[in-house]
Every structure is written in C-alpha cells, then in structure tokens.
C-alpha cells in the first residue's frame, strides 16, 4: 500500500511515530516517507490524524514514541533554530498581531538567522524582498496585516515562511476560510514554489479535487493509518474514496487538467438530473489523455455506466449506503 516515493529521494520521514492527546492515541507507530522536491498533499476525513501528523512533523507536537526524521536526523535532537532554517511551518490559523505591517511580519521569518546583537543583514533584506515578491505581497509592504483580506493575509503568512529560506514548507490547511478564487491563488503559489524553486511542499487539504489537481504525491489517511500514497492519477479511485471517506462516488478525468475529479454519487433522489438536462454518462470526454492513467490503476473508473442516470434511487435509500447502486455522473460541460 505505502509505496515508496519515486526516485526523488526522501527528505522528511517518520519512524514508528506515535502521537496522542491525553487518553486518545491518534497516530500509532506510523512509518512514512515524504519525497523531496515534491508537492505532497495529505487528505482524509476529519479527525483522521492528518493535522496531527503535519503538526508533529513540524515539531509543534511531541510524539509519545518514535521520531520525525529530517534528512535522516531526528528532528528533536536538532536545535530549533537549525530546524527553522530548513523547515518552514504555517499553522492552521495563526494569530494576526495587531498593527504589525506586512514587511515587519515577513521580516520575522528571518528570526532563525538573527541574534539580539545582530538584528539585520543584507541577506535578511534580500530574503524578505524575495519572499514578498514571490508571494506577491510586495505592494502591501506598509499595510497592517490585520487590515488585509483573508487571501492577502494567507499570502503574507506564506511570505513569512518563505523568508525563512527553507528547503521544505509544511502547511496545515492553508486554504481553509478562503473563497474559491483565493484557494486557487494560494495553491498556485505553492505549486510554483515546488515547480520553479524546487522546494518541498507538504500541505493538509480538505478538498480532494484540489489535492488531485496540485499534488505530485498524495497521502490518504484514515484513523491514523495511511491507506494509500502515490501520485493522485495512480491512486485516486472511487474505491479509495469509499475506503477513506465512506462515500460512494464517481471519479472522472477533470475536463481542464485531466487529473482525477471526484464527484459524489447520487445521495438523494431529489438531486437526480431532470429532463431539462439529459443525463449522459461521461465516457472520457474527447478521448482525454487522462483516461489511460485510470486504467493504469486497474480500477473501474466509471462504475456501472449501464445504470440509467435518470432512474432515481429507490425511495428510502440513504446516503452512503454501499448497496445502493451509483447513479451516473452528472453531465459534463464538454470542454
């Protein structure tokens, strides 16, 4: 299941990692390798341990047993300043300090390189300038962070972690609380960091389709265990979504990127397509290039195309009922 990442090499890994809160054990003996120079996305249902895993790797939580390894060295044995020069962390909802300007906050990302007797250097200036340009917040330099919109703020926080000049970046649900346009903006930025700067990016995301669109390496978790790991086009199937989320769905190629697109199955008869929009099961529109990727995974991507989509599910059937046959996917716009 837990396939080794391709030839990229491993930067972060966990060994026998056991983490819990009070009585509850969230992760129990987890062994995991994260590929270097990749955008890794961790997905899974609420309380599956994905945030706990990320926070432990970011040394915000202390494991009960086992270790997080950064290039093979246990992260707990490294001085926190050294870790901060190699690993940037963006927690889920950072407290926005009152009256701090954007440049000031981004400048605090230089902390691991500064001492009270050496508070600023040319490298600091260059790194802050570069980080603000990369995250596209240079025009906001003098604005107090607490006056910015959610999307702008998130870019500022990312700029702060970029100013740290780390090889790797860990982000806990960086798109939560943002509208769709800002979500895409943030994910595009993370994608660019990986593609153009060769940074290792690890993020917890809620949206499976965004995960499939952006991730090089997808990790699906359930109840503290890794259910599957690998490139989304190879591992993201209807079976996996059912295993992980307990939700029946249809996986079709995304009409824009060709990445797997997860569409929940018909969960209520009222949602069935009406006569106005004839339901046409999607058979890989336009012979999309993504289709082979799915067959590679050896999974029936579009289940039971024979079932007429127009047939409403039997009355009384409830959502998530595994026995309930899936209705066909919704018609695609066809472009």
């Amino acid at each position, binding site marked *: 299941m837990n396939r080794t990442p391709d030839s990229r090499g491993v930067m972060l890994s966990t060994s026998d990692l056991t983490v819990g809160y009070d009585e509850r054990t969230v992760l129990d003996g987890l062994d995991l390798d994260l590929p270097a120079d990749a955008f890794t996305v961790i997905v899974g249902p609420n309380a599956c341990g994905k945030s706990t895993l990320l*926070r432990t790797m*970011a*040394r*915000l939580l202390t494991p009960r047993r086992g270790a997080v390894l950064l290039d093979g060295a246990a992260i707990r044995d490294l001085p*926190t*300043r*050294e*870790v*901060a*020069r190699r690993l*940037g*962390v*963006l*927690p889920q909802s*950072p*407290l926005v*300090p*009152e*009256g*701090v*300007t954007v*440049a*000031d906050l981004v*400048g*605090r*990302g230089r*902390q*691991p390189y500064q001492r*009270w*007797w*050496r*508070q*600023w*250097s*040319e490298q*600091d*200036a260059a790194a*802050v*300038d570069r980080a*603000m*340009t990369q995250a*596209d917040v*240079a*025009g*906001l*330099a*003098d604005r107090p962070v607490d006056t910015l919109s959610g999307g702008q703020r998130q870019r500022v926080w990312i700029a*702060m*972690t970029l100013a*740290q000049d780390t090889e790797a970046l860990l982000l806990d649900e960086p798109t939560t609380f943002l509208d769709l346009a800002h979500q895409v903006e943030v994910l595009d930025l993370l994608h660019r960091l990986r593609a153009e700067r060769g940074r290792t990016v690890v993020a917890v995301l809620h949206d499976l389709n965004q995960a499939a669109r952006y991730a090089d390496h997808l990790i699906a978790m359930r109840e503290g265990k890794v259910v599957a790991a690998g490139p989304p086009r190879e591992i993201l199937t209807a079976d996996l979504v059912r295993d992980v989320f307990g939700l029946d769905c249809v996986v079709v190629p995304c009409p824009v990127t060709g990445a797997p697109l997860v569409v929940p199955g018909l969960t209520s008869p009222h949602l069935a397509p009406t006569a106005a929009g004839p339901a046409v099961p999607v058979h890989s529109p336009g012979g999309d290039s993504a289709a082979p990727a799915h067959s590679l995974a050896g999974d029936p991507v579009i289940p039971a195309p024979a079932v007429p989509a127009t047939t409403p599910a039997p009355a009384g059937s409830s959502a998530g009922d595994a026995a309930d046959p899936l209705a066909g996917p919704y018609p695609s716009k066809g472009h």
Partner: protein
Amino acid sequence: MTAVQSSRPTAAGLPGRSLVRLGPVSVQVRRRAMLVAAVTTVLLAAAVVLSLSLGTPYVAPADVLRSLSGAGTPYDLVVRDLRVPRIVLAATAGAAFGIAGTLIQSVARNPLASPDVIGITQGAGLAATVAITTGAAAVLVAPAALLGGLGAALLLLALGARHGLAAQRFVLAGVAVAFALRALTEVVMLSADPIDGLRAQIWLIGTLAGRGWSETLWIALTLAVLLPVLAWAGWALNGTALDDDTARGIGLRPGARRVGLATTGVVLAATVTAQVGAVDFVALVAPQVARRLVRAERPPLACAALVGALLLVLADLAGRRLFAPTQLPAGVLTAAIGGPYLMFLLVRRRRRFA
C-alpha cells in the same frame, strides 16, 4: 499589484527602521521610536525643571539650573537636597514601572496585564502591611514587600502553569490573585492598631514624600543588574506578538521566552513597588501611551521607560501643587489618571470585538 512598490527592506533594515551599530552589535530601531524618545526626553527635562522650581519656596527655573550646575545659590538646600532626590526617584521609579509594564503586557498579549492588575503590587502591599502592622523595623518593610511581590508572581505562575501559561488565563488568574490579596490586606489592616493601619494605608497608596537617594539606589541597582537581560528582552519581545505555533515555526521557544521576560518584569515591578509603595497604573498606562506614539504593536522599552518617568514626575508634581498646601501622594494622582484610562481600554476593546 506590484506596481505600487511602496517600500522595500534594505540593508539598513525594514521600512521605517534604521540599523544602529555599536561595535559588533547591530540593532534595528524604528525611526519613529527615536523621534518619540527624543521628544519625551525633552518633555521629561522640562517637567523635572518645572518640578524643581515649583513649591514653597518658588525657585525660578534659571536659579534651578544654576543650582544644579553647582554655581552656588541660596536655593541649594531646597533644590539639591530636598527636591532633587525626590524627583530623581520619581523618574527612576516611573521608568522601571514603564519597563516592567511593557514586559508583562507583551508576554500576556494584553494591555490590561500590568503588575498592579495581576497581583504583583497587591502581593507587595500585603507583605508591607504585615511588616508595618506587626511592628517590624522600618528597614524590613521594603524587603518584605519585594518578597511579597515575588510570592504573588509565584502563586500566579503555579495557577497559570497548569495551562501552559496561556496568555488570556494568565490575566484572569492574575486578577483573581489581586483581589484575594487585597482582601487579605484589608483584614490585616482592620485587625491592626489604628495608627499602624494608617501608616500601612499611606504605604499602599504609594508616595514619594520623604524618599530619595537610597530608594533610587535600589531601583537603579536592579536596573543595572538587569541591563543585559533588558538588551535581550528588547529584541525578544518581537516574538511575543506571534502565537506559540507560529513562534515555534520560526525557531523560537515561546514558553522559555515568556518565562524569561515575565520574570524580568516581575522582579522589576516588585523592586520598585517595594521602594515607592503601590503607585498604581504607571506600569499600565506608560507602555500603552508609548505604543500609540510609536504606532507599533508593542512599545520599545526605552520609550516606555521615558513615558513612565514623565508620568510619575508629573503625577508627583501635581500631587504636591494641585491642592497645596495639602500634599497628595503620587499614587492618588496616578490612580486618578489610570482609572479612567483603564475604562477607556475596556470600552475600546469591547467595541472592537463587538
């Protein structure tokens, strides 16, 4: 978006700051903070001269300056022996209160968290009251007050440590500690001899009357010993605006840092309170005034110290002259300014969160 390139960080520092070099040490200073410090210093000097001049007898400012320069005037006794020690004490104590308030408020991320709100002053007050009413030697009052203030801080630490010294709980626990200690102080005072009770009462309000060089010496000594710590603290305070996770992410150890900064603030606050009594609200108001003048998320230590010194010198002057010949303790005046200011803070916060 990037067309309006407002300002960029340069080798000299972030926008609005300059790099001040002293040998191997290079420190980032906000230019606005330097301006505020310069203006406050001028105002402080003016307030000191005014305070030396006003009173009975009145001494013209020119004579004050001449006397200070050692030229020898008929007013030397009044100016140099009677007024200077008291005013130097006011300035020193005010500065120390300003620094202590800044440290504790920044650690708690709450403008209400000053030593007189969270129980440090009340702990010192209880110990001093006990010392005074049990007839202990006068020299023991200050050490007792110091221990009382530190004891209150330890109690607070024990209450707060259970929750990892979280900022908000720290303040709530402090307010509870302050009330409990004040109630105990009342009990001690009421059950004591009325004369001793009155003396304790005056101590509790806080006055600079009849105090001078020896009190100043203790405060200055503490400040001197803490100077290296304060140099570090001025920088470390930058991290306190961030939440713990974010702070850890950039390589800080927020817990250790908080304990270090708070301990420094508590030691300073307890020392000053032991020397001048419970002069309320200077530690609360000075950092906030300095912060607003500098327009930063927290006041630079030097600015808070200067504003604190100015506040206490003015409060002492007003206490001496406002209802002359009746002398009001400086603590009454600072409370009269601080009370309404505290209400203003509360109202403003509520509006912000509404």
